[in-house]
């Protein structure tokens, strides 16, 4: 178990180190997020939406911004390994589950960093007031994990195919849409301060995320070795 964790951390640390030296994924994620945020804030602004619609529309917009940013950068972790031909080396040296764990950790941390910058900006720019901030953050965290799990396995599949950029979005969207529906419901409930509804949405997110995690941990070796 400890050996597994150590090896996973090795993959994660390697990815982080490579990423900090080039910043391809970070930059594209951040740029995409900031650009969409700027567009949304410019066209809608804090007073563009009627008071009654705010919780729902602002929650939906937030997740759309996050989703687009994720589409722009989260496939890098695997695609880069294939493009620079380092994947075969990793395949020979590491256990598949270790690679999956490392990449998942990397994607989670990337997404968490992005959201840590994006969400406060969004709250300020859109004049969003959240009734239950604790639940709001919990929904965001659960969403971050579930998004990272799904994009990691899709990125692994896409890296093994051709025309990867377009395929990543095509394959991710159907898997992510139900998740986004629950996340938007949860965010809205957290903004409005309806705790039981937040709990219901969180349960659905955890359930879907959990199923995804188990399925991708189980299926990843197939994707990785074929």
């Amino acid at each position, binding site marked *: 178990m400890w050996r597994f964790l150590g090896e996973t951390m090795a993959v994660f640390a390697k990815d982080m180190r490579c990423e900090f030296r080039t910043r391809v994924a970070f930059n594209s994620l951040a740029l995409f997020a900031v650009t969409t945020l700027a567009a949304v804030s410019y066209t809608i602004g804090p007073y563009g939406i009627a008071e*009654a*619609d705010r919780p*729902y529309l602002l929650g939906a917009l937030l997740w759309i911004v996050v989703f687009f940013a994720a589409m722009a950068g989260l496939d890098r972790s695997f695609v880069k390994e294939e493009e620079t031909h380092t994947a075969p080396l990793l395949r020979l040296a590491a256990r598949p589950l270790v690679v999956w764990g490392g990449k998942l950790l990397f994607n989670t941390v990337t997404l968490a960093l992005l959201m840590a910058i994006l969400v406060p900006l969004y709250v300020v720019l859109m004049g969003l007031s959240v009734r239950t901030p604790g639940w709001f953050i919990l929904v965001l965290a659960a969403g971050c994990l579930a998004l990272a799990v799904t994009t990691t396995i899709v990125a692994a599949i896409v890296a093994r195919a051709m025309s990867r950029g377009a395929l990543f979005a095509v394959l991710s969207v159907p898997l992510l849409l139900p998740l986004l529906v*629950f996340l938007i*419901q949860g965010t809205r*409930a957290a903004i409005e301060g*309806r705790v*039981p*509804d937040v*709990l*219901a*949405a969180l*349960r*659905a*997110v*955890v*359930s*879907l995320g*959990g*199923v995804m995690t*188990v*399925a991708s*941990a*189980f299926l990843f070796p197939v994707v990785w070795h074929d």
Partner: protein
Amino acid sequence: MTKRTVLCWCLVAAFLLAGGPAAVVRAQGGATRAAVPRDSGGPDLAPAIEVEAPAPDPAGNVAASSAVSDGGGSSGLMAVMGVTLIIWLGLFLYVFGLDRKVRRLEGP
């Protein structure tokens, strides 16, 4: 089936049971309350009739339908049925031809 496979299936089932149905029931209760005042533009588009499950009373059903078909005319229905039948015949013949061809290609 390895132990790992069994474990994975159990975990998937556990997650589905833990979150899925429970969330459905809750969200249903919550959503009708929250979403009806402002849903995604449904009622604006819908015509004046109320949408409801078909009436449970069969007698009333038949009565209503005969009233409707008096207005609509059964010749129209005949025409639609005829077109559907012709489409079905064409489709069947086409697929049957394919079936024959495949059997011939597969040989003995």
